[in-house]
């Protein structure tokens, strides 16, 4: 967690702010992935401002939790969260995807302190998270450190994911907490048309995982699920986070055509207006 403990409504405002950053960044970049980044804003806000034990002023802190995106194409939402958390100045967000920027189109560990790995090519993040979790559990006896990663649902088409699922199940990696951003879209269409994933819960359970299905746009549900996952000490945990792609901007929501395109100037202006209007709807206060 970064800074003081935020209330639920403050976290919701954070998520909404991050969405607006993403819209501005993608418009300025002129390319990038919009729908997934917006859909994952609540998860990233919950991670960076409530869940993760990290220090933005000391990104290599030896006691930190590990978090990285396996679905690296959604990285604008992570950059927005990192800037908000204080890893770097928010002004740098507008350099996304530009020549010389530390904010590469897909995350690169060696470019920006606070990024734990390089990702984009899908399917290998869960293996890396499992490797770090193995070290904490079996090699270094660091039971207080957790490893988090987020995969896209389309990413689950990759065979490497299921190699990692077997590995983590075999070694009962209880400090490994993985999310699937279950938004049902990928580049070529809806996931169940491109390559069906269901029964998704049953798949993970059969590999030895503890599985939770949650509303991935509900920050309270996200935090609850992670707390449950931390209490499960004999299995890795998979949080299937059902999210609305493009969440918060009605003309982007649910439309797979927004997977890999940025908003133009008019669309960005309209999206920001809608997100600002959403901000006024946030009323809930405490947990």
């Amino acid at each position: 967690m970064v800074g003081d403990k935020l209330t639920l409504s403050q976290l919701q405002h954070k998520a909404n702010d991050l969405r607006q950053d993403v819209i501005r960044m993608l418009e300025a970049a002129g390319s990038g992935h919009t729908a997934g980044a917006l859909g994952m804003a609540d998860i990233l806000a919950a991670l960076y401002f409530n869940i993760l034990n990290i220090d933005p002023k000391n990104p290599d802190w030896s006691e930190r939790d590990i978090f990285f995106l396996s679905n690296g194409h959604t990285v604008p939402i992570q950059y927005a969260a990192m800037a908000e958390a204080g890893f770097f100045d928010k002004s740098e967000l507008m350099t996304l995807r530009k020549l010389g920027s530390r904010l590469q189109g897909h995350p690169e560990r060696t470019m920006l302190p606070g990024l734990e790995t390089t990702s984009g090519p899908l399917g290998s993040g869960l293996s890396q998270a499992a490797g770090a979790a193995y070290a904490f559990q079996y090699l270094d006896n660091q039971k207080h450190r957790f490893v988090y990663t987020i995969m896209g649902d389309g990413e689950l088409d990759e065979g490497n994911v299921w190699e990692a699922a077997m590995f983590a199940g075999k070694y009962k990696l209880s400090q490994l907490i993985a999310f699937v951003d279950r938004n049902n879209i990928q580049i070529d269409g809806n996931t169940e048309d491109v390559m069906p994933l269901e029964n998704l819960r049953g798949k993970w359970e059969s590999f030895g995982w503890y599985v939770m299905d949650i509303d991935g746009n509900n920050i309270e549900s996200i935090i609850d699920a992670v707390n449950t996952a931390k209490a499960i000490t004999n299995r890795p945990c998979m949080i299937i986070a059902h999210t609305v792609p493009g969440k918060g901007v009605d003309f982007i929501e649910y439309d797979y055509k927004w997977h890999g395109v940025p908003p133009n100037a008019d669309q960005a202006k309209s999206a920001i207006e809608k997100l600002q209007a959403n901000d006024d709807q946030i009323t809930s206060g405490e947990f």
Partner: protein
Amino acid sequence: MSDYLINPNVLNDDVAQDTIRGGFGRGLKVAGEANDNVVALCADLTESVQVHIFREAFPDRFIQTGIAEQNLVAVASGLALAGKIPFAASYAAFNPGRNWEQIKTTVAINDQPVKIVGGHAGIGVGPDGATHQMLEDIAIMRVLPNMVVVVPGDAIEAEKATRAIAENGKPSYIRLARVKTPIISTDQSPFEIGKAYILREGSDVSLMGTGVMTYQLLVAAKILAEQGINAEVVHVPTIKPLDNDTIVASAKRTGRVVTAEEAQITGGFGGAVAELLSEKLPTPLIRIGIQDRFGESGEPAELFDHFGLTGVHIAKKVADFINTSAQYHREY
């Protein structure tokens, strides 16, 4: 010119032989003793790649991944993120043959000190045939930025090379042969990543070898000497970073270059030397190796003969080369 200590018995019929993979296995145990962060992973081929020596010494630092080479190397990357020095081992045909993209992204771009161990490389794997005879690994690994590529020449050097890459802090690939091969070096011979070594000084042609082919070049040089041809033999156990100075200096001394590798000449060691010399010192050059075809089943010795990789075959090719090529840039 060189203080390399060659095995004095190397050209005798009773030259000692050992497996390069065995040297690796012993070196890995020594590296593990030197540094607690060294861990080893294997994809169901633990004894074949001689990782069982490490496993028996450090059972808590050995990780079995099953037959899953993509997971093997990506888990290794995650272990490196947690501060470990992982050796990820399997057959070269699958590691890096199967999992090259994971190596590129999670190891090379990431600049993590994961050590990729490619066992049973080359035609020396024998009867298993083309699918298991990895000949393209040098090419696909040396093309990766950040990657160190080491191809030891014998079991003694393999042990030293393994200890060296454990300490170099870089993504690294080490290529291992299956069968016993002659010992060309001694315990006192130097090994440093990025260095090539003159094993035999000569004036008519430079024979540059990597891995097990250096021995065959020493045999060829002896045959050529009987014909009045004075060949220099350069051993190049590190293909990346290449020892440009030693290679260019040797080419300048002899004016003709022959490269030899148990791998595809396209993009491999011969390709690396050709790239270097064509920029720095264009020199007549031929490349001994696998000539843009796949391997096939057979006993290792039969295959070395079939593919023209023995000292006898090489001596003939070199003699023909010398008779048809002028010496360029020679220093008189």
